């Protein structure tokens, strides 16, 4: 019998294996419980599920979403609902970067102890206050009209995102039934174009090429190239809008001369362009609160001079994410120091106790030297004065650059404008992209103008 007893140790191994598994399972559930419970597959959350989530407010305490009588209710203004769809989210978690998708945990006050459906007296939902101004968003949505595009405005002194609008959009009360993926009215409707898309930048990228020159070359400002409208590189043609003649950096940027910046990029070379763009956070996802953005692309490692030339004017494989462009602008506007943009101002419990406040969580990155940043700012300011005229942004002392990103033969180009105000009391940077539309100054310019005028009049 004693031997049998000793041999029964094999059962003990099985028992301990089982107990180990239970431990592992407990650990797995405990660590990932929020991910599991708040996954979109969880039917406790769908439809009426959001009925227990807390409020979402804008910077002026306008209620963007709240729950009442077992229902999730959004702002009563249909245009505010549409303008903030991509920021706030809908009932079905279609928009992955939205607050209602990423901050479910906080909105519910979910914890593993009481689960998804705690008794009424233990409910602990939180309210989230955003940095967004819903009224400005509404104006931006109207300005975008029927275009597919994105508008983003940020305070470069504080990092607050004031306006973030993406079109096409829809009313969260009437989610579309999309039968055809190619339906142009709903192309990429679930993507927030400010965060989750990158576009061919065209001429706005010249600012980056200029920055690379300023950071690397002593004589960058005085360097002169001659534009004869067409330049042969590797037996292929780089073309310009006009024959601009001899230009220095400042005037080439003002005239948006392709030949100048293509030549500049070729002279700077692949290595400097690659390493500078990487240091400017290209090819990297940015973190905006819990949101991870789509990365911007710049890579000329395997390109020839012709391609390197086009890459310097924002064509080739270049892609720019609107939120990333805001980060770059913040550095230009703020002497090289870019305050990380953010959306969440504070998270508070239903009794008003503040659980999280941004004031303790502001970060920044030094992306440019002060001299480069200031020189870029003044060149872009010069561009507004000489090229667009201050009437576009009256009283803002604006600096800006437009762009027209060519995408493919059968589509119209992406229209871009980005810039900011140099005034102390209106420290805003802005970025507007309109897909498949036309020239930057004709399409994106008026939208940016409308939004900035409205914003600065409010102030």
């Amino acid at each position, binding site marked *: *019998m*004693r*031997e*049998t*007893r*000793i*041999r*029964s140790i*094999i*059962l*003990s191994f*099985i*028992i301990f*294996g*089982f*107990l180990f*598994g*239970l431990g*592992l*399972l*407990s650990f*797995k*559930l405990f660590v*990932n*419980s*929020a*991910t*599991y*419970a708040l*996954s979109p*597959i*969880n*039917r*406790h959350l769908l439809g009426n599920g959001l009925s227990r989530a807390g409020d979402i407010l804008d910077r002026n305490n306008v209620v963007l979403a709240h729950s009442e009588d077992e229902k999730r209710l959004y702002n009563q203004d249909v245009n505010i609902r549409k303008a903030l769809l991509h920021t706030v989210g809908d009932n079905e978690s279609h928009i992955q970067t939205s607050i209602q998708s990423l901050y479910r945990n906080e909105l519910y006050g979910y*914890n*593993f*102890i*009481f*689960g*998804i*459906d*705690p*008794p*009424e*007296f*233990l409910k602990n939902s939180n309210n989230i206050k955003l940095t967004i101004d819903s009224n400005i968003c509404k104006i931006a949505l109207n300005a975008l009209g029927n275009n597919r595009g994105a508008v983003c405005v940020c305070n470069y002194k504080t990092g607050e995102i004031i306006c973030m609008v993406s079109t096409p959009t829809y009313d969260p009360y009437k989610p579309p039934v999309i039968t055809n993926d190619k339906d142009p009215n709903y192309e990429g409707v679930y993507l927030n174009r400010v965060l989750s898309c990158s576009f061919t930048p065209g001429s706005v990228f010249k600012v980056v090429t200029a920055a690379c020159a300023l950071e690397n070359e002593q004589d960058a400002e005085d360097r002169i190239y001659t534009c004869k409208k067409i330049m042969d590189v590797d037996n292929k043609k780089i073309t310009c809008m006009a024959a601009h003649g001899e230009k220095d950096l400042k005037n080439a940027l003002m005239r948006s001369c392709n030949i100048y910046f293509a030549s500049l990029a070729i002279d700077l070379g692949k290595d400097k362009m690659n390493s500078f763009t990487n240091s400017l956070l290209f090819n990297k996802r940015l973190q905006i609160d819990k949101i991870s953005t789509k990365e911007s692309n710049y890579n000329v490692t395997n390109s020839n001079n012709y391609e390197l030339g086009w890459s310097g004017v924002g064509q080739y494989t270049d892609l720019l994410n609107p939120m990333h462009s805001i980060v770059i602008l913040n550095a230009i506007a703020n002497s090289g120091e870019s305050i990380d943009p953010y959306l969440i101002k504070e998270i508070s419990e239903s009794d008003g106790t503040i659980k999280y406040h941004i004031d303790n969580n502001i970060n920044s990155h030094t992306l440019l030297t002060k001299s480069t940043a200031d020189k870029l700012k003044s060149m872009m300011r010069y561009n507004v004065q000489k090229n667009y005229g201050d009437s576009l942004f009256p009283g803002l002392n604006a600096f800006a650059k437009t762009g027209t990103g060519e995408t493919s033969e059968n589509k119209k180009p992406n229209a871009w404008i980005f810039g900011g105000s140099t005034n102390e009391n209106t420290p805003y940077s802005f970025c507007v992209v309109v897909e498949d539309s036309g020239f930057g100054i004709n399409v994106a310019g008026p939208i940016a103008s409308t939004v900035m005028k409205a914003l600065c009049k409010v102030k």
Partner: protein
Amino acid sequence: MTDLVPIILFSLKVLTIILAILIVYFSFKSTKNFSRNRRTLILLEDINTKEELPILYWENTVGRNKHCDIKINDPAISREHAVIFRRKEGWFITDTNSKYGVFLNGEKINGKTKIFINDIITLGETSLVLKTADQSKEISSNKEKLFKNVKPLRPGKILFFITLLNLLFIGETFIIKPNSVINVAFPIIIFLATCWIFFFISKYLFSRATFEIENLAILLISIGLNVIVNYKVELIFSQLISIALGMICFLFIIWFIKNPDNVKKFRLLIAIIAVIFFVINLLFAKEINGSRNWISFGGLSLQPSEFIKIAFIFVGASTLEDLQTTKNLTGFILFSAICIGALFLMKDFGTACVFFVGFLVIAFMRSGSIRTLIFSCATAILGSFLVLTFKPYIKDRFAVWGHAFEYPNAAGYQQARVLSYCASGGLFGVGLGNGYLQYIFASMSDLMFGVICEELGFIMAMLVALTITGFAFFARGQSIKSRSTFYSISSCAAAAMLIFQAALHIFGSTDILPLTGVTLPFVSLGGSSMISSFGLLAFIKASDERTYAIRRN
């Protein structure tokens, strides 16, 4: 008033959990009740040296080997010379192929021979006289109390608390879905009545003094049944019939293996019947959800592999006397290979794994050979490798293993939902019938652990898992006190199969192991599974020496 409802509901949930924990705790505690202290049953005294050799167990090996229960240092004695064992009729000795034989009062014995007090047993050059324990000069502690007395709750009282637990469950249903409470309460009351009848039959008809293991099984069934009844009442009646059949099966097996020597007469017959069952299964099976492990006649569907689990243990386990005389495992290995092979042909890989674990435990406990273990595992790995090479589509089943949550709408559909709903339940659950996992395909059989986790909470789900673990601990604890190695081996094998099946169920559905789709013993919906769980539990119950030894007074 309406504000009170959530408070009452929550308190009810907490109360059920506490009650369930107490039931499990007291049941396991009272398994210690009436258990025999390690004490000498009888004595052997060396005639020359007057050295006393106490006999401690129901079955004892005698020999020169240091692992023998009664070790005698005499070069003329074989390493494993004889077995002295006790049966209902008294004490016996049998020669286990020793070199020079065993002599009883001067005569060489042949086969199993009864021995009496004052008989002289001669092995090699040593002669021993059999004495009762109180004739000992050395052991004075024999005056100590015969049994430990831990003052536990009596079995009937525990069953009463289980009844109360079921009433709390019904109360929970009453708050959540007041309209369906009659539909729900009716089958539960029938179930409770069945349990009490089972208790009284066991107590008065079979005069069993203990009922702890049964109580724990009833607790597990209660938890499963209340979940099922709140999902679809119409599923419950076949489940109730299976429970009753399971209880009958349980009582029958315990009665049938009362005398372990008789079981071996049936061993070959049982093995043949099991193989025939498999053949019938393979010929007439219909394919359900990708496995061909069901046969049906009339309106009745059966899973023969579940019943063969019981046959498997019958064929595998044996008494110490047999272990010492027939050392080779060829017959059993062959039988196991047929069983596991047939399960592979049925594509029932989960059950094949359960059989394999049962095989490992039996093979090791019979032979003690680590080589056999390694050889079996190597064969199994090679076999699985061959299967995966020739039937690559089986690989798809394992494709998302460990990443199920990343494919929530493809191959990880079930596992992702189990994880999501387990996390939704929290520690106390969302309440009976309030879950969503129940609407997923095969939820009541293959995903039962998740359903319990969601509706009754993580604590209750863990309690279920720990109760099954408790069965295994109990089986291991009994392995030395059992009345025969037949019981030790069969109960350890049964416990290993139960716990391994629970492991496949729990870890398969939560993506820690690949999903194989097996039931959770006693808890899941499924008649064949319920009956076989009771069958396996009968072996664990039989290994408890109190089952046959102590009569109700």
